[in-house]
């Protein structure tokens, strides 16, 4: 398990291929990009080196994404919940965002990314944060509280099938399955 792509072992590579939706090229590319994020000393360590979130977010693919921090938190297996990623976490991320990932995988991770307070369901607070994330932080683009309330009411009316005031995973997946643009847009390519 060395630092360069050529040293990514054959067995390891086939394991990665088996467990993710990525092809060999993509995995090698991911490895290359990941090692570029490591400092010189870290490169000599094994693959389990964690790269802090701040450095992950320097990747141009994530830099301007409004959900970048959530993405890191969701895919991080770190105990400190600091959003740092190992190489395998990174592969997970790319696999979920790859072209060949299934709708189920994509919607599962989308749900977790949108679930800002990590309580397993999208409530009004989450939805509000989601809308604010998407409309930007500046005042002229943000919705007024009144509009926000109405929008969230619309959203819940549309998707909250069991009328418990929140959107749970299966309701969310139902919504996703009905918006066909999701699969093509939930995509990050290295």
């Amino acid at each position, binding site marked *: 398990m060395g630092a360069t792509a050529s040293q990514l072992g054959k067995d390891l590579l086939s394991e990665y291929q088996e467990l993710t939706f990525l092809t060999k090229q993509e995995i090698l590319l991911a490895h290359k990009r990941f090692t570029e994020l490591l400092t010189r000393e870290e490169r000599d360590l094994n693959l389990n080196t964690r790269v802090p979130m701040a450095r992950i977010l320097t990747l141009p693919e994530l830099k301007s994404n409004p959900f970048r921090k959530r993405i890191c938190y969701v895919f991080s297996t770190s*105990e400190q919940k600091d959003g740092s990623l190992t190489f395998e976490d990174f592969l997970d991320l790319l696999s979920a965002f790859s072209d060949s990932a299934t709708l189920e995988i994509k919607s599962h991770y989308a749900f977790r990314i949108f679930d800002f307070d990590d309580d*397993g369901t999208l409530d009004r607070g989450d939805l509000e944060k989601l809308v604010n994330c998407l409309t930007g932080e500046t005042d002229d683009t943000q*919705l007024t509280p009144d509009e926000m309330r109405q929008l969230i009411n619309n959203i819940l009316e549309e998707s909250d099938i069991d009328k418990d005031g929140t959107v749970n995973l299966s309701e969310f997946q139902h919504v996703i399955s009905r918006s066909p643009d999701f699969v093509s847009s939930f995509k990050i390519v290295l």
Partner: protein
Amino acid sequence: MTSYSNRGFFNPAYHDSETLEIDKRSSSKPHHANPYAGEDPYRNWGARTELTDQTPRYDAEQQRTAHRGGWQEESWRGGEGIPMGPVSTHQHDLHYSTFQIALDSQYDGSPSIPLPSSMSGNMTMRWRGLAMRRMFPNTDPAHVAFTEDAIRNQMENEEQDRVNELVAMSTRERIRAIRELPMSFEEKKHIRNQVQAFSRKPHHFTIFEGCSENVSLSMRRCGYSVRSTRQTLELWHGIMKEIGGKFGSSVLSYFVFLKWLLMFNIFSFLINFGFITIPLLVYNHTPNVPPNVNFRGLEILTGAGYFSYTVMYYGSYSNETLVGLVEYDMQLAYFFTIAVYMVLCGIALIFSMASSFKKNYTLADLASNSAWQLLCSWDFSVTNERAVKQRTNNLSVQLKESLSEKGQRELLTLSEKVMHFGVYLGSWLLSTGLAVGCGASIYYLCQYEQQRATDAASWSLLQEAETLLVPFVVSLVNLVIPLFYSLFNKFEHYSSQRRQIYALVLRNVILRMSILGVLCYYWMNVLPDNFSCWESMVGQSLYRLVIFDFFFLMLGSFFGEFLSNVIGTRLLPGLGVPEFDVARNVLELIYAQTLAWIGIYFSPLLPAIQILKFFILFYLKKVSLTQNCQPPRRSGRAAQMQTIFIFLLFFPFFVGALSMVAYTAWRLTPSEQCGPFRGLNNTFEVVGEWIDGLREIPGSEWAVWIYQHVIRSEIFYFLLTLFILVIIYIFWQVSQGRKELIVLLRQQIVNEGKDKNFLRDKLQNLQKSHPEKHPKQKKQKGLTKQRSDGHPSGGQSNSNAMVQALLARQQLEEEEEGRSIEGVPVPSDISTSSALIQAMMARQRAETHSEGLYQTPGEHVSSSSTAARQRVDGRERSTDEYGSSAIRTRVRAEAEDLDYLPASSIMMQAMDARQQAEEEERFQWVPAPPQNLAPSGSSALIQAMLARQQAQNEFDDGY
């Protein structure tokens, strides 16, 4: 705990449980001091207790609060601080505080669990646990840890079930299934290892198995490498990414479509070149050009002259059987290559159309402006900072629009409606009239041209240049008329943007179809009578059309994009920078491709021109896009538009081209002087002759028979059609049935939601009505539980009951598995929701108990411990001071049967058991006969609840 793990160690089924995984690992890595890894948790905790024995009870509480650094702890324990009643015995105190410490060390980021699998397992577990916990919003947060423990068990069970499912699958399916688990990499690896360990064991000694394993492994490797090569061959990866990053996926879809068409053309070029052209070139490589014809340069535009004697067109292919190493019948080769190509194209189109349709249409929502649609269509592939900002702006505008639209769904007056209708009618009439007019004028133009043209071997330069008139006019019409259509569109008021686009697309399609229809009619009916080698003439016309179409595409992107950019930025800033019109551009591509399909019979190498054209077009459009355009303002339904375009490509255009080629092959007489089919009445006769030839070869009677009785018989086609119709009808019925099922299921979800809310409200009301009686009672109950179970519990809350229900279930399954000798685990039938209901019941019961206690303080201890015991948990208790063991065993006995019953009846039984238990309590332990209620879903549940409540009231009244 001890017996659990020991028994599990020898039971293969238990190698799946996470606890054991930790056990095994920690024995190999002794430095991990996992609190769960100890042989005897009791002893561990006991040892720690020595240190903290004297600490005040609230210490633990504080300690815990202080340790809140974690990720979840904050939200989980956010609302703590429920006052605890005074502790009755020292022993209880001891257990309480020890548990807290164990808990803290486990969950607050201490180094005791560095194992990746257990940690990531924790994460998913927490996440799931949170989902479960939400069902009890008011619960005491201090108790969460205990819930977590129960949920952990639950998770283990689920994992085990999953592993069992995976073991039963074939290797390929298993790999796919594991890959599709929504888990982190470590967890997937963990599960895969378990599954592999599990599935190899039974048959690792058979050689055959080993072989097949190896074969499948190498096959898989091979598959991966194929996938990889495909990726390497992926054209324009970087450019595509750049476009997607800047303009989003809807514009990208144009380029994807372009690339897809390019692939089609490369394929068709390869097979045409390989099977038709190369044999001819090998056999006779000098083009058969008359001496007075030479290359003049204009041929590149007109395709006439010198080109008409090369392999470019139909006319220069021979009808001979080429005799080289093998005999190669040119006629057959030509016919079958074209036929196979058309069929393959059709199949590819049908498949991609069907899959795209399935994905994007059947499930899709019809409400166009729903908020979710907008929120879900955020493009994660957009990476450009400015583009992101622009998108957020656009999205906010769109959201606001959707809100205002919803707010004031305008009601049109009659006169307005009539006016709108008039405008629609007018613009449709006008656009259809334009299309028909264009078709007619092109027909007359063609006739005029035909009158002037002569069937001469060589044309003068002027004559050759005159042939350019038709393609020029056609391309001009194609460029200009759509602009008029866009203009009409501005005057119409469509309720949604989608309908507007559809109207525009439909008009453009009508225009192009009418033009192509007229041209085809002219080629089929007029040309054969006037030219000796008419197929080549058609080929030339198509060549010219393709070339001119290309020029006009370039002009179009110059005028459409560059000029409007200049005007928008310099002259009239109000217009703004243009957007890339995906619909118009894709229609242009479709038109171009149709020309190539029609031309495949007349000019087999036309795909080569097409490849070149698309290749240049890609770069041209890319440059034009990045220089002149801005990202689209509306995030439209790119995926659905894509489906529409594939459908359009298939339906009028490909089917039109196919029927034209088929008509030519079946009905028209090939020209007599040139081409591979000279001398035949129609092209299809080639097959008949071939079959006649086959008759003489012995052993090929079957082919002749098939030809005679299948291909040429009407009955066969009649039966085939009938069969397909029947199948279509059956599938249609099935889909109708599914639709009904969907409606029913939806209704069921709504009902369950109502039930859930109803039950929750009832529970909350009950909770509110006896707030002051809880602490003491709960405390004692919890402590009893703690002592009996070995599972420590912190604060006492009602969520305890849920945990207990879960635990009870857990234990049941455990017992089940303990009994089964081979260790084949029995998957649980009880769904989470039934567990939830059980939990709610248990909780309510806890409350009613406390009520009872309040009224009969004398029996305090006795009934509280009964309450605890009825929850099926006692395992290592040796004594039954209060004589309630009868109940306990009965509940358990009943519960053991539960696994074999469907969930609803389990629910009923659980309730029955409780009801019974209550009755027994009421009658001073006189056993009552079990009641058999008919299990009928959730309404029965509510009835039973009410009945129980009534019973409870009576019970209270009795005191």
